[in-house]
C-alpha cells in the first residue's frame, strides 16, 4: 500500500485545509465524493405534530427541522438507526433548535440558536420527531460535508524580471502555493520566504505581485498534490469526516476485491 503525505494549512473543529500527495485526480475526486455522499449523519425524517397553532404549516416546520444538524459520533450507530426527539414550546416565544430534547445524549442539535418558528400569544408547537442515520446519497440533509472541494497545489516559478515599463497589473491567484522561489519572494502575512513552505494565497491578498515584487512569474500545477477545503455542518469534526470518508472507500474496495475473487 502506498503512503500518503498529509500537510495541514488550516485546521479547526469545523473546517480544515490540507494537502495530500501523491494521489491521482480520480482518487482526489473519490475522497471528495465520499465526504459529501457516503458519510452518514443523523437528520430528522418523520415528525408527529401533536399541536401546531403557529403561522407555518406542519410540512414547513418539518422541513426546517430536517435541516438542523444533529451530532453523530462515528462508530456508535448503524445506518438506519433511529433516535427520537421532542419539542414543546408555547408562545409568546421563539422555538429554537436548542429546544429539541433528544432521547439519546449522543445525538443533540449541533447548533442551538437556529430559529424554528416565532410563536405569538396563544400559539403552541408540540411535536415528536424521529431522526434517522442515513447518507448524503439519499437526501442532502444527511450530508456531513459542506462545500467540500479540492484543487491542485501550485508552484510559482520566477522566469525573469518584470519589464521596466510594464503596466503594474495584479497577478491574481487563489489557492495554496508551495514556495519554490524563496530568493525572489518577500515576507507577506507572516509567511517568511522558505523553499518548500505552503503559503495560502490569502497571505499576499491573492496577488502574486505582492509576494514577488518586480518579477515575472509563471504558475504551474504540482502533479499529484491536491489541496482540500473541507467544512462540516457540525455533525462531527473535520477529522472524523475525513477519516470516515476514507473508511467508506476502503470498505467498498474490500467488498469489490472479495466479490471478484474466484
Amino acid at each position, binding site marked *: 500500500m502506498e503512503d500518503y503525505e498529509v500537510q495541514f494549512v488550516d485546521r479547526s473543529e469545523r473546517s480544515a485545509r490540507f494537502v495530500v500527495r501523491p494521489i491521482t485526480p480520480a482518487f482526489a475526486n473519490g475522497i471528495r465524493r465520499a465526504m459529501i455522499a457516503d458519510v452518514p449523519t443523523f437528520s430528522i425524517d*418523520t*415528525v*408527529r*405534530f*401533536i399541536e401546531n397553532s403557529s403561522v407555518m404549516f406542519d*410540512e414547513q416546520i418539518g422541513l426546517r*427541522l430536517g435541516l438542523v444538524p444533529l451530532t453523530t459520533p462515528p462508530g456508535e450507530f448503524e445506518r438506519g438507526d433511529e433516535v427520537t426527539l421532542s419539542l414543546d414550546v408555547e408562545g409568546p416565544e421563539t422555538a429554537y433548535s436548542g429546544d429539541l430534547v433528544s432521547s439519546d445524549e449522543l445525538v443533540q442539535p449541533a447548533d442551538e440558536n437556529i430559529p424554528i418558528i416565532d410563536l405569538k400569544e396563544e400559539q403552541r408547537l408540540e411535536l415528536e420527531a424521529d431522526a434517522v442515520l442515513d447518507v448524503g446519497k439519499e437526501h442532502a440533509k444527511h450530508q456531513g460535508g459542506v462545500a467540500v472541494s479540492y484543487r491542485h497545489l501550485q508552484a510559482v516559478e520566477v522566469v525573469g524580471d518584470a519589464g521596466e515599463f510594464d503596466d503594474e497589473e495584479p497577478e491574481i491567484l487563489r489557492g495554496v502555493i508551495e514556495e519554490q522561489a524563496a530568493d525572489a519572494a518577500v515576507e507577506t502575512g507572516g509567511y517568511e520566504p522558505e523553499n518548500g513552505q505552503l503559503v495560502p494565497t490569502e497571505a499576499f491578498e491573492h496577488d502574486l505581485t505582492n509576494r514577488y515584487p518586480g518579477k515575472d512569474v509563471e504558475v504551474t500545477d504540482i502533479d499529484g498534490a491536491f489541496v482540500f477545503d473541507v467544512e462540516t455542518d457540525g455533525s462531527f469534526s473535520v477529522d472524523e469526516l475525513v477519516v470516515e470518508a476514507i473508511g467508506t472507500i476502503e470498505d467498498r474496495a474490500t467488498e469489490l476485491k472479495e466479490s471478484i475473487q474466484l
Partner: protein
Amino acid sequence: MSYKCSRCKRDVTLDEYGGVRCPYCGHRVLLKERSRDIKEVNVE
C-alpha cells in the same frame, strides 16, 4: 363536522338540513378547526 363561526367564535355543528350558517348569529362564514389527531409528516 365541527366548525367555528368566524364572527361570534362559537362552536358550530352542521347537519344536512340547516345549510352553511351559524345558528347563533346567522353568519355564513365558518372556519374548520384543526383536528386533534396527531399528524405524521414525512420530511422530504
